[in-house]
């Protein structure tokens, strides 16, 4: 990852969070090599849009539980690959879902989609290792 100091206008608090945590991937690389890092990032990037769609489907159905589940699932995997802003958004969306408050969730999901794109751009080519 090469843009830990970038900020994106996803909100005053999230803007202070780095897009990614290079150390998270460096730890993986130290033990598992670049191949493991690539595999993890590819798995994450393949899976994340499905989770996002699941959250959007839950929102469309008015199901706070579905929104919460999708955000919960993405929260851990994003943190594992150092996608800090994605993970922070998932924490917020999961919390809204748990509280049954879906009012701000559409904007948060839009921000999540943007942050996924930013992370994806930083992860290729060669940015993930």
């Amino acid at each position: 990852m090469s843009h830990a100091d970038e900020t994106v206008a996803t909100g005053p608090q999230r803007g202070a969070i780095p897009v990614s945590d290079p150390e998270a991937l460096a730890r993986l690389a130290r033990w598992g090599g670049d191949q493991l890092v690539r595999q993890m990032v590819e798995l994450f990037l393949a899976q994340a849009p499905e989770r996002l769609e699941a959250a959007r489907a839950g929102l469309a159905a008015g199901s706070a539980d579905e929104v919460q589940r999708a955000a919960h699932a993405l929260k851990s995997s994003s943190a594992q690959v150092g996608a800090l802003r994605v993970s922070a958004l998932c924490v917020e969306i999961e919390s809204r879902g748990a509280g049954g408050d879906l009012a701000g969730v559409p904007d948060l999901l839009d921000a999540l989609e943007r942050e996924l794109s930013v992370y994806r751009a930083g992860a290729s080519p060669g940015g993930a290792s």
Partner: protein
Amino acid sequence: MKRILVIDDDAVTRTAAAASLSVVGGYEVLSAGDPEEGLRLARAEAPDGILLDASMPVMDGPEVLAALRRDPATSHIPVVFFTGSARPPDAESWEALGASGAVIKPFDFPGLPAQFERLVGWSRSREGTP
């Protein structure tokens, strides 16, 4: 060599945990992406320990653990929950379910094997660093 079964529907977490336990811990690792496959592997392969996602669709971790405990072939296998809960787990509540404890996700990649060993009471020395 001890064998650990990882049951987690999240491919990223499952892959990372399997890599940590095998590369860092030196364990043989079996992986399952859903509860049914996890129960099948637990019965067929009788692993020495299980790392079990607490939150999965259809059948969650506590339900899988209850199924493991009901089966004489798997009732003795130590189980550690894998949880993404924002709150620290209440050790007593995990133990009341029959688990040895819980590991919080995201987990520390190089530290997972030692954490698992500590929770299940396995003692073993580890050599070397990357």
